[in-house]
């Protein structure tokens, strides 16, 4: 499935394929022509993706074929062992946890998993956790402290699930508790927004010492659709809402919400999953190594200070001192 703005790229890719086939069939050498078209393709990808609107990036962040948490757990980490269950109510498939290694050293992983197809999406509730998922995450934070293992979280959710059972089981309470529990970790923590950072449901596992985000991922207080429905009473105004919310990686880096933007291959992560996973794997190792080198007594206070500092206020002229 192609996103609308990808059409010219896919058309050109089709042309190159046809030309190759034709050259083979006719046994002629079109190498030069093909090389020219390939160079043009690269330029087109780069210019298209540099000029994406915020709404287009939202679509890339949600695109089918984009690597999901499991793709990273299986290929960017070593020896991932999934651990299940919140020990209270159940096991939430939308939030996956376990142990893994980076460069032969163990880490605790907490990750939001969307489906890679419709069937898995239904099983994973499209990456939208119930309270059980956040309880499982908190159990992992306990485990991390107990064994002095760094925590890596992978964020990819439209948001915490808005349903009857979720509310009855205290969705708000458990998100607040998870924010608090993660802020109290005595070990270093790294969060990577790999797709959608949907509001409180994302922040619940995002209170890390360092927060990185993939170039075409988003992180927002509200989805563009919901924002548009509220502000303009029309969900089709989502593109306008996406613009207004400034929810792209670079927007977020500007206001200090994220510390690092991880480049995606031209054409987006969904067109080059392997390359994306390799780049994330490299960044994970680099970031965790740097965090391990930090002062062990300062991880908690550094994390507290990081989030305490976020926000923009000014003196109030009329009522000010």
């Amino acid at each position, binding site marked *: 499935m192609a996103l609308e703005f990808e059409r010219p790229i896919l058309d050109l890719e089709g042309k190159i394929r046809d030309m190759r086939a034709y050259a083979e069939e006719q046994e002629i050498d079109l190498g030069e022509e093909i090389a020219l078209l390939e160079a043009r393709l690269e330029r087109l990808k780069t210019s298209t993706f540099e000029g994406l609107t915020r709404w287009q990036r939202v679509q890339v962040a949600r695109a089918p074929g984009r690597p999901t948490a499991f793709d990273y757990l299986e290929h960017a980490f070593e020896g991932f062992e999934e651990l299940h269950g919140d020990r209270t109510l159940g096991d939430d498939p939308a939030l996956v946890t376990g142990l893994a290694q980076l460069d032969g050293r163990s880490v605790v992983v907490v990750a939001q998993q969307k489906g890679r197809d419709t069937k898995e999406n239904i099983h994973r509730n499209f990456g939208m956790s119930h309270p059980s998922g956040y309880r499982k995450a908190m159990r992992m934070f306990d485990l991390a402290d107990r064994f002095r293992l760094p925590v890596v979280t992978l964020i990819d959710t439209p948001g915490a699930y808005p349903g009857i059972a979720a509310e009855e089981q205290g969705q708000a*309470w458990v998100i607040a508790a998870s*924010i608090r529990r993660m802020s109290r970790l005595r070990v270093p923590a790294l969060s990577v927004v790999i797709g959608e950072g949907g509001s409180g449901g994302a922040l619940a596992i995002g209170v890390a010492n360092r927060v990185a985000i993939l170039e075409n991922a988003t992180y927002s207080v509200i989805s563009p659709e919901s924002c548009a429905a509220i502000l303009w009473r029309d969900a089709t105004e989502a593109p306008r809402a996406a613009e207004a919310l400034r929810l792209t990686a670079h927007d977020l880096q500007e206001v200090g*919400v994220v510390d690092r933007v991880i480049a995606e291959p031209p054409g987006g992560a969904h067109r080059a999953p392997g390359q994306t996973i390799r780049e994330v794997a490299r960044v994970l190792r680099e970031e965790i190594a740097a965090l391990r080198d930090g002062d062990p007594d300062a991880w908690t206070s550094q994390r507290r200070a990081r989030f305490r500092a976020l*926000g923009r206020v000014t003196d*109030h002229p009329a*009522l000010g001192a």
Partner: protein
Amino acid sequence: MALERWFRRNKPTRSDDDATPAGLWVKCDGCGAQIYRKDLVANLSTCPECGHHYRVTVEERIAMLADDGTFEPWSGDLAPTDPLAFVDTEPYPDRMERVQRKQGRPDAIQTGAATMGGTPVALVVMDFFFAGGSMGSVVGEEIARAAERAAVEGRPLVAVTASGGARMQEGALSLMQMAKTTVALEALVDAGLPYLVVLSDPTTGGVTASFATLGDVVFAEPGALICFAGPRVIQQTIKQELPEGFQRAEFLLARGMLDDVVPRAELKGRLVRTLQLLQDRPVDRGEGDGTSPPDLEASEVSEASEASETSASIEPSSGEEGTARGA
């Protein structure tokens, strides 16, 4: 989250302006009874007939909780910025300026010091009538500063929440206030000081999912809507009717989410006693409003008649517990 405007525009059962409805006579939203407006105000903005709790202003809230004349404001010198240059139907700074003028404060929060039943406390009161009590950078910062100053001054913190959630006009920075307020509360934890919360109608979204539910003790007012996702969002998601009383205080109490649902007339007394109990101090049983929590009623019959002075700022005295309860 960020449902403040949803609440303002859809008005499911109550309007933004129904704190204490205008006019000499008021038709109760809860039971339809005709109430003399002065009786409603005198009764802490609860219906004398059915106990329906109206939303109250910050001033009314402070008057009913702080000992008379003891409230000293802390907040007021911080104002919001426009980090995203956000424009919806009007530019965010214009919207803020209008609301600031209407509400007479720079953002949706008032913090300060006071005594409650003689105990020094820090008070945080959210202003639902200011942009739906939405939490942006200023609200988050004022809460954080109040928690930190309370810790330094050795005061327990009492917060009364009323909010549509995070303020979307400040984007992800509003979202981050959830983490900021949470980490700032650690100052109270470190200092061994209590943090009590009263969830009032409505408390939703990012406020519920952060400092509002992190109290050492969490009370709610009768009938208050308390949720993460609003009822309409859920209905749109699941396309089913919601159960009776869904996301209301009593519903949440039954599911173990609250320490108690406390009628307004009993609120100050319950807060004062809880602070005394948590801090292992003698419990002043006549403190507050002259009413007793239900589990103590049997052993405290004699004291019910002694109306105390601590809620004198709301006069006449509000001994309507029989009708206020059970809403």
